[in-house]
């Protein structure tokens, strides 16, 4: 299924899963819009996209320094994308935070001593940010009569998403994302918009490597490229099918 002319926005696009998704989507022929809060990292990502694999369909990409927690920024994300490329086919909402930004603590807070500020920040980026980014693209996708949103959730155990000690804010935000994703999916499905959540186990990214999550999986990580390929597969599925809540875990062989 050719992606020629199709447009994908990736929040959290300048690192981890988001960055790998940008590269894979670019290789698949999408125009990619990289959303992040740090201009230097966005530029690094854009360089990777320009230098990526020989793709005869390679097209220009766009980097925008925007914050998923700001309503106006998410509006700007949509306006600038449509201005430049005329449409929005895919949103990959990958921006997420494990703990408070700038925190020097190596050990996570137990709930009893978790500062409200950290709780708010994690919920704001991981849950409200998903709401704001999804909300912003839906009107454009509705007008098009087609669209695909993939919200990057998490599989915190080998059985799927479960609450974990010392990660109350992160877990609450990911559970919240599932409810939000299901609600939106039910609303906009009739307009040809597929909304799904992807549940990866531990992926080799800066966010995950700062945690002990991988110990629940026998020390095995999934490569970001594998997750990125899965995302590309999901958004390229024919319009009459959808994987529901796909969970992807490390294989121990």
């Amino acid at each position: 299924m050719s992606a020629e002319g199709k447009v994908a926005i990736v929040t959290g696009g300048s690192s981890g899963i988001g960055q790998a998704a940008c590269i894979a989507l670019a290789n698949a022929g999408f125009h990619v819009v990289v959303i992040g809060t740090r201009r230097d990292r966005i530029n690094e990502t854009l360089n990777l996209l320009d230098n990526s694999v020989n793709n005869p369909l390679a097209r220009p990409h766009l980097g925008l320094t925007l914050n998923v927690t700001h309503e106006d920024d998410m509006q700007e994300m949509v306006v600038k994308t449509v201005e430049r490329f005329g449409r929005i086919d895919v949103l990959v909402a990958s921006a997420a935070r494990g703990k408070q930004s700038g925190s020097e603590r190596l050990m996570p807070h137990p709930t009893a001593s978790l500062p409200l500020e950290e709780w708010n920040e994690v919920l704001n980026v991981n849950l409200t940010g998903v709401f704001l980014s999804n909300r912003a693209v839906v009107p454009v996708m509705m007008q098009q009569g087609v669209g695909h949103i993939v919200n990057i959730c998490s599989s915190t155990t080998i059985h799927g998403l479960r609450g974990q000690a010392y990660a109350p804010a992160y877990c609450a935000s990911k559970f919240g994302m599932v409810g939000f994703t299901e609600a939106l999916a039910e609303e906009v499905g009739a307009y040809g918009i597929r909304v799904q959540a992807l549940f990866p186990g531990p992926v080799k990214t800066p966010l995950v490597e700062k945690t002990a999550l991988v110990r629940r999986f026998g020390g095995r990580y999934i490569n970001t490229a594998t997750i990125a390929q899965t995302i590309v597969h999901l958004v390229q599925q024919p319009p009459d099918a959808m994987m529901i809540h796909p969970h992807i875990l490390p294989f121990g062989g």
Partner: protein
Amino acid sequence: MGTENEAVLEGKVSIITGAGSGIGRACAKLLFSKKSKVVLVDINPDNLAHLAAELKDIGDANDILSLPLNVCSESDMAQMASQTVARFERIDHLVASAGILRVDGVLKTTVETSLEDWQKVIQTNLTGTFLSDRAVLPTMIAQKQGDIINISSVSGRQGRAFDAAYCASKFGIIGLSESLAEEVSSYGIRVQTLLPDAVDTPLWNQNGPQSIRAPHTLPPDRVAECILSMLTLPRDAFFLNPVIAPFKGRKKRRKGGDA
């Protein structure tokens, strides 16, 4: 998941049970079109012959082995493995897709379900999956590599009235797969289970005309494509009991007089 990965199927040996119809048939065609060697297993020799004839039109007849066998029979499943190895020297993939919905296609309450009918469904769907999986394991263990995909159903997570045996068998397949996965992962054998929602196949059509609301069924090709994506997923990962469902998309405008 993309053409570079699909090239990985070339020359690989894939056994598909239930290849004579529905999901198995679509899967066999797709894998063969990606240049996998295919071993077609089904209880119905006519269906197998039709499929083999179609495949010969699109590829090399030497890459096809048709085996009219019964997944319920231990000796048949042993044959499946030994004949595959004799012909192609390895077993890379098993897609265990053979299954029945009901005996004689008749909906029955649990009270009306005979022991014989119960056992037939459990035997074909669950025991058949066990026997086909078990048959290929020694070869895969010796290879230290293999992929098994067992076909369960959304009815393997959520039961439905009038199909107690079917639901029990599909729930059971998930349990079997998860157990097996844990046992053999250290041998490089990846065991995954796919849970399709309603698929447009002869099995589903036993439900008869749907009067109240036309169900949206998946074309079997979609399920085959999903199986392909599970087989070609890079080996650092596996899908945990994925569900593949029809996506309804745009509602068609209903004209007066439409059913």
